[in-house]
């Protein structure tokens, strides 16, 4: 454990060298240390007039306390052996009427895709939340979630850097006003990756393989089409997010190769859970969970028969996509045999 007396006596320059993440702490707390690299942290704080702190709405003791907590949290995060999640297991709870769920246990291994189907309001969000929270009979459904067959450490529930689940929601908009490059740099920075340039390159290449229309690094993210946005978000989540589980709420079938998108996630060893109303997505999955009245009603494995039907559905998707492309380029359509 680092203590404040260790940090106070270091020069700011040394502190930044030893703990590079301190830079973001200082910056976000509006502490401009540009001309104080040779000054110790304590002397730096001491040179402020109390009025200046009031001006910035800061509190000297609070800053010291937070810095220590921040440094220790980051060190423990960076030094942590990240246990790889090989599998998650859901143990049954109860539905809205308190009736036991209709399955014994469900284990999902990495690189597996599970779809979740059921009417709106049936409890899909609750299931996804149970997984995110690593439920331990302490949610309304009383479900239990195991990681690698064991009850996981619940101390990480509020960690921002150590989330188990990444979510791709249905509304996929960007709100930041940045270019693709700047956007990915920012994300890479918050994830503290060592070789951001390389990673960013990989993400953009992967996203372009998924998107119908190509885009480059300098495109503003708010200027991307729906398909391009989804492609970028999926590639970014697959490659840059450390969360081992990806929850997807529907992928719209426009401007993106959904099958490749799922393959990308699976190849990055993610566990993929996907809520969907779309038959071809539901059948791409290895298994599907049917939710009814707040509980898991059934778990169906996609069988050979359905895989054949999936081929037909994919054929139809292909036709629709092709017609869309033709219409966009100004052609007239003819019946396809």
């Amino acid at each position, binding site marked *: 454990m680092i203590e404040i007396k260790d940090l106070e006596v270091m020069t700011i320059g040394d502190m930044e060298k030893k703990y590079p993440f301190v830079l*973001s702490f200082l910056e976000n707390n509006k502490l401009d240390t540009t001309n104080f690299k040779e000054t110790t942290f304590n002397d730096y704080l001491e040179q402020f007039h109390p009025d200046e702190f009031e001006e910035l709405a800061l509190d000297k003791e609070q800053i010291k306390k937070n810095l220590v907590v921040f440094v220790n949290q980051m060190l423990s995060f960076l030094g942590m052996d990240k246990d790889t999640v090989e599998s998650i297991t859901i143990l049954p709870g109860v539905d809205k009427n308190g009736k036991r769920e209709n399955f014994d246990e469900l284990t999902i291994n990495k690189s597996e895709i599970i779809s979740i189907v059921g009417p709106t309001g049936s409890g899909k969000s609750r299931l996804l939340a149970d997984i995110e929270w690593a439920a331990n009979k302490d949610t309304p459904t009383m479900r239990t979630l195991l990681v690698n067959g064991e009850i996981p450490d619940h101390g990480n529930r509020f960690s921002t850097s150590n989330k188990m689940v990444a*979510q791709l929601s249905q509304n996929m*908009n960007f*709100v930041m006003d940045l270019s693709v490059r700047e*956007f990915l740099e920012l*994300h890479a920075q918050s994830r503290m990756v060592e070789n951001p340039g390389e990673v960013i390159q990989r993400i953009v290449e992967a996203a372009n393989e998924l998107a119908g229309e190509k885009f480059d690094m300098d495109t503003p993210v708010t200027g991307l089409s729906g398909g391009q946005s989804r492609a970028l978000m999926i590639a970014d989540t697959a490659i840059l997010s450390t969360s081992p589980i990806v929850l997807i709420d529907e992928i719209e079938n426009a401007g993106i190769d959904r099958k490749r998108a799922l393959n990308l996630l699976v190849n990055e060893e993610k566990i993929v859970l996907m809520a969907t109303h779309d038959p071809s997505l539901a059948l791409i999955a290895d298994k599907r969970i049917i939710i009814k009245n707040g509980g898991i009603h059934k778990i169906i494995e996609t069988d050979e028969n359905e895989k054949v039907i999936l081929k037909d559905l994919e054929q139809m998707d292909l036709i629709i996509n092709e017609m869309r492309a033709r219409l966009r380029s100004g052609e007239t359509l003819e019946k396809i045999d």
Partner: protein
Amino acid sequence: MNLITISGPPSSGKTSVIIKTIEAVRQRGLTVGIVKFDCLYTDDDILYEKAGVPVKKGLSGSLCPDHYFASNIEEVVRWGNVKGVDMLITESAGLCNRCSPYLVGIKAICVIDNLSGINTPKKIGPMLKTADVIVITKGDIVSQAEREVFASRVHSVNPTAKIIPVNGLTGQGAYELSTLVYSKEENTESVKGMELRYPMPSALCSYCLGETRIGEEFQMGNVRKMKMGENND
């Protein structure tokens, strides 16, 4: 009675988060009361009434809402105790992002939203930095990357807080939040003699006192001038 102070910028989703959270709290057989502070107008009290909880609203009108909070919280706590609720929640909007209505020793929750932009954690003062729990809303309308960047910035300005994403529409995360708000051991009978976690700004000028005319001769008291030189400082 448990006292919980919730604040956050306007339109960050405080009311939605509270309504979803009290659903979960009430399922455990606990009773909840709400006091809504605002400046000029609110109809959130109707939403709370619909949800079936005792509610009181306070409009600060021509006064600073946070000052108004500080001068009324004692009576508000008395009201909650008379109503006999297990948990009293105060909701107030941090209108200039500077102050916070948090008291030392009373649970403080800040609600901010992903849509407000990644520099927001820098712009919000003690309301964010001294909170015990930070709820981040509207995660469903931004990307995973934006959520991660936003949360990591919030974390860097308040590393001691518990940070929890809540969706005010679907309620995802609200149950989890409800496990953080109530504690059996806590019993606040009165807040008399308690202290604010951070002082309010020391401003008192002629405009505070009703002056409307523009011009140097009308400015008195705590007045400060921008530097209008060549540099942008």
